């Protein structure tokens, strides 16, 4: 059910140079699951001057409550007299590595943290620990590799992180490591590690700084999403919101179709496409999105002429998966910026997709009213 009349919603803040600079800082920061301090520090700096209440919970989530300031929207139903308590979640953590065994001479065995494919790690420069000690995931050069070895799948057991003997003293078992990729702008695109989910973090910081006035904004900058939606679970328990949105970044597997003996093969598993706008979730492994919220996002995008796409229903999960099952159940949905090559050393995304994602979430929040939930799911 949509509001009786078009709400007079404020214009959203612009995603401009300041937000890009913020995204760059966030992407270059290292915050592997369980060790999110570096991103948390940036978040706290950015939100403290703007937020009513800021806490860091026991797991390390940053929880920001910002009470709505605008006038209450007059509604027919009594439920409509109150501002909605709306949770927005973006995860601070990224996938990476943990050193597990010191083999001497600056050579370390390591394990992956979050979803990473061993075959995509070979030869990548990394930073280790809070001091960003540089290292590399070593690879044997091709002229010393046998033909048999080239056809075998690369296993994690065969890989090492090499920081060199001089740096050995600064890297320790238990330290996290992540890709050393530096943020770059490529024309209309952005290249960085950890776009998943620094896009969400940057968007959410911007929302805290300039929130839509009609809602009580409950912002959760969550930890440990990549290892099983752990932070969001306790954050949702704390906030006990009436509705929740997860802001994330989802893969675009949209490379052009390829030719085979049987002709052109249509790509049926693109997940999302770059340049097609924010990706609205209907279903993934963790959540069947609340259909009322899916309709609300689609109708908002169409009413305002914001491009959007439906993320292909399929696998994967977001913080919404943990949030919607908390307490009495919380109507939830996810909205993502599409990005290519996520969970590898470097992702690529379009600036316009981010701008449109931010515009869509801002307008959707501005138009959010308790009437949406007058109809049962």
């Amino acid at each position, binding site marked *: 059910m949509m509001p009786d009349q078009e709400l007079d919603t404020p214009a959203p803040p612009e995603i401009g140079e300041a937000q890009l600079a913020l995204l760059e800082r966030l992407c270059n920061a290292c915050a592997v699951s369980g060790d999110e301090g570096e991103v948390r520090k940036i978040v706290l700096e950015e939100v403290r001057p703007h937020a009513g209440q800021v806490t860091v919970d026991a797991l390390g989530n940053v929880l920001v409550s910002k009470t709505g300031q605008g006038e209450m929207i007059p509604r027919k139903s009594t439920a409509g007299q109150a501002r909605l308590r709306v949770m927005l979640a973006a995860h601070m953590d990224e996938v990476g590595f943990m050193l597990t065994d010191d083999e001497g001479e600056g050579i370390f065995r390591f394990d992956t943290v979050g979803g990473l494919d061993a075959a995509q790690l070979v030869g990548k420069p990394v930073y280790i620990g809070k001091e960003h000690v540089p290292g590399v995931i070593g690879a044997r050069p091709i002229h010393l590799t046998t033909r048999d070895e080239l056809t075998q799948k690369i296993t994690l057991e065969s890989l090492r992180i090499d920081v060199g003997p001089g740096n050995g003293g600064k890297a320790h078992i238990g330290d996290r490591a992540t890709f050393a990729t530096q943020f770059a702008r490529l024309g209309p695109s952005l290249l960085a590690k950890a776009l998943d989910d620094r896009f969400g973090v940057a968007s959410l910081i911007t929302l805290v700084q300039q929130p839509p006035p009609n809602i009580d904004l409950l912002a959760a900058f969550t930890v440990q999403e990549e290892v099983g939606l752990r932070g969001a679970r306790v954050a949702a328990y704390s906030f006990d919101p009436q509705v929740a949105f997860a802001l994330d970044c989802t893969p675009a597997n949209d490379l052009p179709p390829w030719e085979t003996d049987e002709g052109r093969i249509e790509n049926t598993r693109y997940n999302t496409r770059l340049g097609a706008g924010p990706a609205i979730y209907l279903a993934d492994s963790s959540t069947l999105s609340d259909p009322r919220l899916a309709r609300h996002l689609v109708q908002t995008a169409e009413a305002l002429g914001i491009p959007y796409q439906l993320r292909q229903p399929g696998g994967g999960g977001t913080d919404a998966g943990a949030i919607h*099952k*908390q307490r009495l*159940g919380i109507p939830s949905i996810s909205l993502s910026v599409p990005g290519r090559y996520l969970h590898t050393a470097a992702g690529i995304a379009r600036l316009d997709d981010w701008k449109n994602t931010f515009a869509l979430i801002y307008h959707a929040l501005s138009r959010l009213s308790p009437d949406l939930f007058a109809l049962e799911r």
Partner: protein
Amino acid sequence: MKALIQKLVETDGPSGYETNLRSLVRSQVEPLADQVWVDNLGNLFARKGKAEANGLKIMLAAHMDEIGLMVTHIDQAGFARFMPLGGVRAQNCPGGRVHFLNGARGVIGVEKLDDPGKGPAIDQLFIDLGASSREDCPVKVGDVAAFERPFIDMGSRLVSKAMDDRIGVAVLIETLRGLKSSPHEIDFVFSVQEEVGIRGATTAAFGLDPDLGLAVDVTSNGDTPKGTKMDVHLGKGPAIKVRDAGMISDPRVVAWMIKTARQAEIPYQLEVLEMGGTDARAIQLTHAGVPAGCLSIPCRYVHSPSEMVDFNDVQHAVRLLIALLSQPVGLE
């Protein structure tokens, strides 16, 4: 009761999209319950009775949802690809028919398999909706369907694509109808999204925080040719769950159920299921923990379009539940 079962299985309710089924169940329970409501995820609650001094707050759960599918892509020739909602088995799909919530119908086809002996994977399947192009396909990405197969009444055996868990829903409705007096406050919960991970019961149990919980769901069996080794048989009575992969039933609850069945001379079996899980798991683990168990209806060919139960087992399940709920609960 057979008419009710038929109505329930002929109403589609894939996980997350239980609206039509909820309307039907609500129309059944509203005249029988003291209070009826729906929560944020779509669980339907029907409350009956007040807890007396020797009574408890009891949660009963049967899930409304069934396995189904959601469209992920429409190709240029108008074929739809899909993802399963819940534990859809790819080998049960080819040649099957599906019914979309928007009314469209389709049949499931399969790509040419490199190794026909291996059976297909879900991503080798597609739905043919009779379209010839993406433009004239009557469904779009995100549309949801249930499997389609007529109900069969074989006399004592009943067959449908959605016995899991409409038979549990029917048992709860008939229990609510048949229960004349009880010292307990009983919440009959018709839950959502069980097939995708016991999601509805999780929030329902949190909301109720009951003293005791029972799920009513189907269980597997071991009485078909070269079947799984399992000592559960169709027609030998409802099964009292001892354990499954998701829960070890509270032994006191199991003992109470056995004792009550014996006293009331209702046939029963004991169920040890090596896989699976039910809403009872969510009840058991909510808040500070809840004594929980499960009454199972033996069912053949679970998660196929032809799930079969024995009607006598179903009726005995209703009798046993009424016997359990009519008296104070003694957990020893």
